């Protein structure tokens, strides 16, 4: 049984009907880390798609920046219960990266520098649903927030938006990533409050 601390408000927070269930609005951009922040020099950065047969397609920083760029404004929802509305980003749509990839696999494992992984079904990455973003709020994405580049999949909880992203691996069946192995939901839809396994 917990003691209720009547005078304790906690961090200023408001829940709103237009937010997913259990979420609070935040104005700042909290940082969540499971390890040290990798610092990746841009001349060593690359992004690789690996298909289910092991065939790799890679872009270095210059090649990646030469791809068509999109500006997008989205709401993001963290499983630790904060939501941030109207965030503005610039980056490359996953659709663009997959233009010349042949794959029959339905699932992916997204990888980041530092060893982070998270699983996302392919259909949740394509058709304008996800990007690899390098600019936040008009500035180069800060390393704390996943720079040089992070995945942004705004319709899923934000742990799916892998920081320091460096590749997508195609998988014939769904496999758990870093947090999914430790009790978090395989899919992570904030509107259905799929925080943990079994939700």
């Amino acid at each position, binding site marked *: 049984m917990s003691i209720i601390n009547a005078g304790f408000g906690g961090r200023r927070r408001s829940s709103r009907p237009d937010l997913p269930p259990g979420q609070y609005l935040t104005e700042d951009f909290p*940082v969540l*880390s*499971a*390890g*040290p922040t990798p610092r990746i020099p841009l001349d060593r950065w690359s992004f690789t798609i690996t298909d289910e047969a092991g065939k790799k397609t890679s872009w270095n920083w210059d090649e990646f920046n030469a791809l068509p760029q999109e500006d997008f404004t989205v709401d993001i929802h963290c499983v*630790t219960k904060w939501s941030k509305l109207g965030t503005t980003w610039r980056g490359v749509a996953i659709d663009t990266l997959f233009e010349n990839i042949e794959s029959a696999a339905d699932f992916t494992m997204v990888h980041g520098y530092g060893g982070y992984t998270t699983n996302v079904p392919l259909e949740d990455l394509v058709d304008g649903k996800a990007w690899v973003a390098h600019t936040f709020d008009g500035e180069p994405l800060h390393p704390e927030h996943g720079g040089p580049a992070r995945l942004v999949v705004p319709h899923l909880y934000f742990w799916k938006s892998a920081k320091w992203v460096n590749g997508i691996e195609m998988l014939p069946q769904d496999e758990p990533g870093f947090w999914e192995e430790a009790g*978090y939901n395989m899919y992570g839809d904030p509107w259905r409050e799929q925080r943990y396994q079994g939700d």
Partner: protein
Amino acid sequence: MSAANELDGNAMAGDLGEIFAVDVTQAVATCAGCGHPTALAALTLWGPAMGSVARCPHCEDVILRLTRTPGQAWLDLRGAVTLRIPMPPDDPQ
């Protein structure tokens, strides 16, 4: 936010104390990555949100993860080859 603190494994003592009868933060884990032995209390700890991630101070590999979901604690120790736990000496038979 305290969510991103980098701490010492000490800070897990409360969470692990709810699971184990002994104070396992004093147990020595041998890193599966580099073989270095380190007391859990001396691991580099990240968290506590979304869970505690304790890394080897020598090679940064993950040694232990602890997450809480409603009604359950998930402890992943696969980054440790062994856990050497201090115990009271055996009673002489």
